[in-house]
């Protein structure tokens, strides 16, 4: 795994962050990160409802060492806090998920969602403006027509590049419970939004109507035992999607079978090991993220302590299980007390589906190579991340003698957690969100 130990780290901070990362504001906490389908753009959403989009610099021959840095491209306020007067509930503006649409023209489109409302944003560039109007002067004031003695044709003059974001669609009032995920279909015409109990199918053009395709709300809420935690469309089959549950199972559904996909076509679940039963068994088996592989043959799921890769053809057990931080198994009680046990970690595939990555505590994140079965723990921290520095693998000491570079389990900082990461679709570039800081690491090229 040599290539993963050499990085050119860059650190980006949202404009309003205070210099020290220990006294950031709550609104600056990054809540989602996502590369677009070419990797040219990287979007982040935060708790304050803002979206910041980074764009990769074109490679230039004059500055070869600045190979494709990411710079801020656009910043806009996607969602505002709202109040539901009927239920006396405040609706948080925190961006839960961002998903890009594949580019079809000069503009970029993304979907962003908070707990209740999905919005389609168009990000477009403007680098020319018309000048030389007849009926208004350069300041925009209307001219008195009687003072006009000649006519001229307005011409487009170059101007400083301006990137503007406009909300093109607002998809609202379709979810009673909190939206946890959105996923764009490969048909590029529809997408799904998912809350705790329902999955709704939308057409990107139509905002006043959505179809409910999964509904696990029991007739009697007393019988509720599981909720939906995430859902995603298959990358190639536009009729197939998967959703994960709080009970640790995944269901694959085929929309051609019925209008309401309550009956799954495949059901993935691994039986619980009774020897590991504890007070918290239900919590740690709840799946926090589900992702199809790029080739569409595998599914990856993340629960509190492990990442699992499932073969779509094998439902009774996962193909591979990776321990992310098993040393936390003995600390579940204190993690329950400080609410860390409810943290929802995400997981990502690399472009070739050979490596998977997920976050942990103490600003650690882990990578697992599926072919060599080797894994590495890396840290996203200011001290370790000077430009062109190489990230050093970290190790957590579980007991006994602690070696010099190791860190003991009790010294881990549980307030520093990496929940959101994303991997460039083709290259070895990763973006890692550590509280309010965004780290972008690139594979070093000689």
């Amino acid at each position: 795994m040599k290539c993963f130990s050499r990085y050119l780290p860059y650190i980006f901070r949202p404009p309003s962050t205070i210099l020290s990362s220990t006294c950031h504001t709550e609104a600056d906490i990054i809540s989602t990160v996502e590369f677009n389908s070419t990797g040219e753009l990287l979007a982040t959403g935060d708790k304050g409802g803002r979206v910041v989009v980074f764009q990769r610099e074109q490679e230039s021959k004059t500055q070869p060492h600045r190979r494709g840095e990411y710079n801020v491209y656009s910043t806009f306020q996607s969602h505002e806090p709202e109040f539901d007067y009927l239920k006396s509930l405040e609706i948080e503006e925190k961006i839960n998920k961002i998903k890009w649409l594949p580019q079809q023209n000069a503009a970029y489109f993304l979907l962003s969602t908070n707990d209740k409302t999905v919005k389609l944003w168009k990000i477009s560039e403007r680098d020319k403006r018309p000048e030389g109007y007849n009926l208004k002067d350069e300041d925009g004031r209307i001219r008195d027509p009687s003072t006009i003695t000649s006519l001229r044709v307005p011409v487009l003059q170059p101007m400083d590049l301006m990137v503007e974001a406009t909300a093109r669609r607002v998809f609202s009032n379709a979810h009673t419970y909190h939206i946890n995920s959105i996923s764009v279909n490969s048909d590029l015409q529809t997408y799904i939004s998912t809350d705790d109990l329902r999955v709704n199918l939308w057409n990107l053009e139509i905002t006043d109507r959505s179809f409910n395709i999964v509904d696990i709300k029991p007739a009697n809420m007393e019988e509720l035992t599981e909720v939906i935690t995430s859902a995603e469309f298959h990358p190639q089959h536009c009729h197939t999607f998967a959703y994960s549950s709080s009970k640790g199972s995944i269901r694959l559904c085929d929309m051609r079978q019925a209008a309401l996909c309550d009956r799954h076509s495949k059901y993935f679940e691994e039986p619980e090991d009774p020897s590991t039963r504890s007070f918290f068994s239900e919590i740690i088996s709840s799946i926090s993220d589900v992702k199809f592989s790029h080739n569409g043959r595998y599914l990856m799921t993340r629960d509190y302590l492990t990442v699992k890769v499932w073969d779509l053809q094998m439902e009774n057990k996962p193909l591979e299980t990776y321990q992310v931080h098993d040393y936390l198994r003995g600390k579940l009680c204190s993690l329950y007390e400080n609410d860390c046990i409810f943290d929802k970690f995400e997981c990502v595939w690399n472009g070739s589906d050979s490596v998977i990555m997920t976050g942990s505590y103490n600003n650690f994140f882990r990578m697992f190579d599926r072919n060599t079965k080797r894994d590495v723990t890396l840290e996203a921290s200011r001290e370790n991340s000077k430009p062109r520095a190489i990230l050093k693998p970290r190790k957590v000491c579980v007991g006994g003698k602690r070696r010099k570079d190791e860190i003991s389990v009790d010294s881990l900082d549980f307030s520093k957690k990496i929940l959101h990461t994303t991997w460039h679709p083709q290259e070895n570039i990763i973006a890692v969100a550590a509280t309010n800081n965004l780290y972008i690491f690139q594979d070093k090229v000689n």
Partner: protein
Amino acid sequence: MEGAVDAQSLISMSLMKIHSSRTQRGGIKLHKNLLVSFVLRNARQVYLKERYAQIYRMQQYQEVLTVCDEIQELDPLDPLDPDLEEPGQDAALPGCGKDPDPPDPPDYPSCCLEAPLSHCTRTTVLDLDTHVVTTVENGFLHQDCCCAAPQCAPDPNPEPPDPNPDPAPRKRKGGFRSSEEEEEEVSDFTGSRKRLKREDGPEPNPEQLDSSNISNLISIFGSGFSGLLSRQADLEQICSKQALASLGAWTRAIVAF
């Protein structure tokens, strides 16, 4: 699983979490509260197991004492005059020293098996989809039933009669529910709060249990919480239906807020 002491603190912690989730921004999170309710159920199971084991040991202890008494009565060295038999003589028999006032765990297992399922309590739930508030008479309160039944130990805090007997579910507009519900629940569940406090009385560390907080929360969630303890095997015949119902009532009560 961990012992009963951890179970108590988990129960306390879980109830605090559910309580604080009502006031946090963004409204109540169904997923998190469902997971917390599982921990609550698991902790309650362990807690009850320990209590039943304790009660069983107490009962066995009582039996041993009875046997000791009988042996003592038959002791040929003692005069047959019953007047000379004093409680103090019991102390002469080591191991049979009788604590005149043993700690009083509620002997609800035996009496629950006998007691009729008479007592009803209410759960008020709000369906988030239809915005309809429903007040439903639920099954039975496990410990309420026990303590109200005549077979149990005399009740120093007699249960006040239900002030608003209303067997039919009532529906109300959602808009005005919050203040009205609070009042109704406090008046309905005052009795259960008292009963719970008495049950928690013998605990060695009341601060740890924080019983007043728990009692207040019980008063809000009513029968759903007590129903959670109905998973023991020997109670399954009576409680099996209520076990599922109560966990759900718990969840419904969560959804209501």
